């Protein structure tokens, strides 16, 4: 039984790199933290299984050939999921370019609510170490992001700010209740809960923005009383370094990007008086890394069509769940989790996912792949978009990585004249 110390967890985008992971006969077990995501994902290490074509076990070579055939014959393919490390994403984008495909990440909903605002108005943002060391007032907007990023408070909020004197910190939950685990992690800090309507957090942000110039004239919003808005506006004005954090994927309803826009406006206006920065959280399955690679390679973010001529980004048309209706073939990549969505029938699906993935409908081709940070080393980006990390491989189940499989599929496509 081997023990791995200082293991880097690639799953939720917080970049925790202090895990102790033990190798047991049945797989891996996380010993150092209760984080449910780390425990669940590291524990899911069933043995390798053979690839399948139409449900029948085949060799990797045959599966690659079948995948190339199915994708090469498509007129409007979708290459999505993109749950892969940087090398896997590079290979996926290269293949998508060959195929003329639309590309998107499985979990890009929250990311695009944020990016839409960044592209429309810009913003003032910060990163996790700034939160940890400088923030004296953390405002958590909407549902508690700890549901998606379980160790957020333990690692980035509970520690004493190193670069503030005096090193004080308080936390306010706006239109959202902290989870029990959050309350436990913040036991030593002053915590205020303003439990307004989580669906109207944007209204609360707008009321705060309006109250900033003169808190005495605050009005209530989203079920939060005027005096509470006034008090929070006053605290934002007096904070030395306030951080407003949110997980946009938790915002419900249409046009949730408008909620983000109002939070961004609040952050902007607080900076007239003092310092304040936003912390948009969205980072599962390397969605941030996938978007970074796409942006540097093509100049546009994901939800892009590489279907000929210039790469075209359209966050509405090329969202994978919408485009999967139009597409006539799907390549779905999910190396971080054994899950795959259901697609409309009548089109071939090529799935790259960990062994043990359950399918509602058997895909045309299934190729089991290793998970970055478990089976092989791989680069992933942290939620704050700045820090890229390399997770190392822990065990060898004999599984190929996404990059290798996709490179083989690209090589098995009918040859054409190379682009420039």
């Amino acid at each position, binding site marked *: 039984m081997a023990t791995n110390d*200082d293991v*880097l967890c690639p799953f939720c985008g917080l*970049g925790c*790199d*202090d895990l102790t992971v033990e190798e047991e006969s049945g797989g891996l077990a996380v010993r150092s933290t209760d984080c449910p995501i780390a425990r669940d994902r590291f524990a899911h290490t069933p043995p390798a299984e053979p690839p399948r074509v139409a449900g029948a076990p085949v060799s990797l070579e045959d599966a690659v050939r079948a995948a190339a055939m199915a994708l090469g014959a498509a007129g409007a393919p979708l290459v999505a999921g993109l749950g892969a490390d*940087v090398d896997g994403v590079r290979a996926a984008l290269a293949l998508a*370019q060959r195929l003329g495909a639309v590309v998107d990440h499985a979990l890009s909903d929250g990311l695009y609510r944020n*990016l839409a605002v*960044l*592209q*429309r*108005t*810009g913003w003032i*943002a*910060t*990163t*996790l*170490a*700034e939160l*940890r*060391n*400088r923030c004296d007032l953390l405002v958590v907007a909407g549902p508690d992001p700890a549901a998606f990023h379980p160790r957020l408070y333990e*690692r*980035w909020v509970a520690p004493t700010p*190193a*670069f*503030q*004197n005096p090193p004080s910190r308080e936390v306010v939950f706006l239109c959202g209740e902290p989870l029990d685990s959050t309350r436990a992690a913040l036991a030593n800090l002053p915590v205020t809960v303003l439990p307004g309507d989580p669906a109207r957090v944007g209204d609360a942000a707008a009321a705060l923005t309006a109250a900033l110039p003169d808190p005495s004239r605050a009005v209530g919003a989203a079920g939060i009383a005027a005096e509470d808005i006034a008090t929070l506006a006053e605290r934002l004005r007096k904070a*030395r*370094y306030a951080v407003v954090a949110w997980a946009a994927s938790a915002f419900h309803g249409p046009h949730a990007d408008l909620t983000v826009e109002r939070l961004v406006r609040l952050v902007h206006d607080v*900076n007239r008086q*003092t*310092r304040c*920065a936003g912390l948009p959280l969205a980072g599962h399955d390397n969605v941030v890394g996938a978007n*970074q*690679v796409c*942006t*540097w*390679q*093509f*100049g*546009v*973010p994901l939800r892009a069509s*590489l279907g000929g*001529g*210039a*790469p*075209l*980004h359209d966050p509405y048309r090329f969202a994978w769940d919408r485009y999967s209706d139009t597409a006539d073939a799907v390549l779905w990549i999910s190396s971080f989790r054994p899950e795959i969505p259901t697609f409309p029938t009548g089109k071939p699906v090529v799935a790259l996912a960990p062994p043990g993935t359950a399918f509602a409908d058997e895909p045309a081709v299934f190729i089991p792949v290793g998970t970055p940070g478990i089976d092989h080393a791989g*680069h992933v*980006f942290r939620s*704050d*978009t*700045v*820090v*890229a*990390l*390399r997770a190392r491989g822990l065990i060898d189940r004999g599984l190929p990585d996404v990059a290798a499989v996709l490179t083989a599929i690209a090589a098995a496509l009918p040859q054409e004249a190379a*682009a*420039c």
Partner: protein
Amino acid sequence: MLMKLAGGRIHDPANGRDGAVGDLFVQDGRIIADPGPGATPDEVHDLTGRVVMAGAIDIHSHIAGGKVNIARLLMAEEHRAAAFATPEPCGCGGAIATPSTHVTGCRYAQMGYTAAFEPAMLPSNARHAHLEMADIPLIDTGGYLVLGNDDLLLELLASGAGEEAVADYVGCMLNATRSLAVKAVNPGGINAFKYNQRRLNVDEAGPFHAITPRRILTALAAAVQRLGIPHPLHLHGFNLGVPGNAEATLDSIEAVEGLRLHLTHVQFHAYGVEGDRKFSSAAARIAEAVNRRPNISVDVGQIMFGQTVTASADTMAQMGNAGLAHPKKWVMMDIECDAGCGVVPFRYRDKAFVNALQWAIGLELFLLIEDPWRIFLTTDHPNGAPFTSYPELIRLLMDRDHRLARMAELHPDLPAHTILGSLTREYTLGEIATMTRAAPARILGLADRGHLGLGAAADITVYTDRPDRRAMFEKPDLVFKDGRLIVRNGVVVALTPGRTHVVEPAYDPKIESWMGRRFDERMGQRLAHFRIAEDEIRGGNGLVRHACRPGAF
């Protein structure tokens, strides 16, 4: 394979050749001696009458990293409008001010450049920058590490640490991030902005750590010298863009007391407050100081007119400029207790007095600073202009008539505020070869680049000698990278990967135990994970190390 480049006019200032006709022989990617009459070249290019130079090297161009990707996202309009700036149907992105990695490599190579260096790699973003640089085809890259606002360094200085400990810290950080040089951006200012300070004077103690910018500047310049890093401290100075900032620039020159210092995009730091508009050129004073001190080098950061985007770690300055954003949107980020980033789209207008004078100040600096070994051709891409405007800039330097004609089209008050009209200097081909090839290689410590001597990497550009210097430098006839033809008549004919240039200065590893604790306590990241392994750079292929020489500079 043996290749002969026959009969070209060779401009190779590092080896004292200024247009003499000669042959070059290339084998295995290197320039070799004439193998004698017995050898039969596999490939011969007749270059009679053509101009031959080493591949050009851009010492300061923001080509990769977090702020560049933010700029791409923010400039969505440009990616729609200029999505297809190329005739070849490669579909690999587009844009001019914020090109994709592919377009970056292609456009540089098409202009005869074979290397460009990212001058603002934040420690926390270094791994990202390297991953991105590896996707830039055709040209060599490398990064300058931004220090001087990192809380760890400021803590170290505040603790009274000596010169040796600071050098050890800098040495460790350079090795860990696989960097080529040290950059300081508004030392102390970015850190102070995180405490809501919007200005910080050179001798004013910053918030929290209570360290003055002067102390940071001198400590870093001394560390660079002590570690023997070939490139001097690369300084983005104080009060960028603020009228009157020339005083701080001159003060920086004095502060380093004879140590080597590189002042980057000095055009943005050469402003006075004279005249009816309280905005004037201080180029003559800066040039005079640079001419007098051989320890000082500069790159200009020329502005050219049109839409671009400014991207800088200097959040203090960028927040001050945010009101000028065009289009009206901008991004600021406080980053990871080491720096920040500010991205502000901007349109330089030729009919605006301020922009016209900025243009003139840049050209005054080019023409007044005498030694082409100590002044470098940059637009601080994309901040002053996209790098694709270099051919026009070269024409402005080489062609006084063109310069005067262009000046006549600008804001009518300009001539009264600049001496540009009276400057008769025209750069020669040899001087252009120096400032874009030989000098950049020398000041970065790239011993085998930027020249065409024996053993040099065969990065070679061949031009037709046209009177229209813009046309000449826009479209070389041939470009070779490591001996391989990559561009012919402006068209990319082969996609080769570049290399990544780094230094690995020696330092006392004792500092790592202090740093390791700080990383655990502050950064939420193990120092061991922060460190970038050799095989992370271009998958283990293409790392080029350059020697550090403690005591040599």
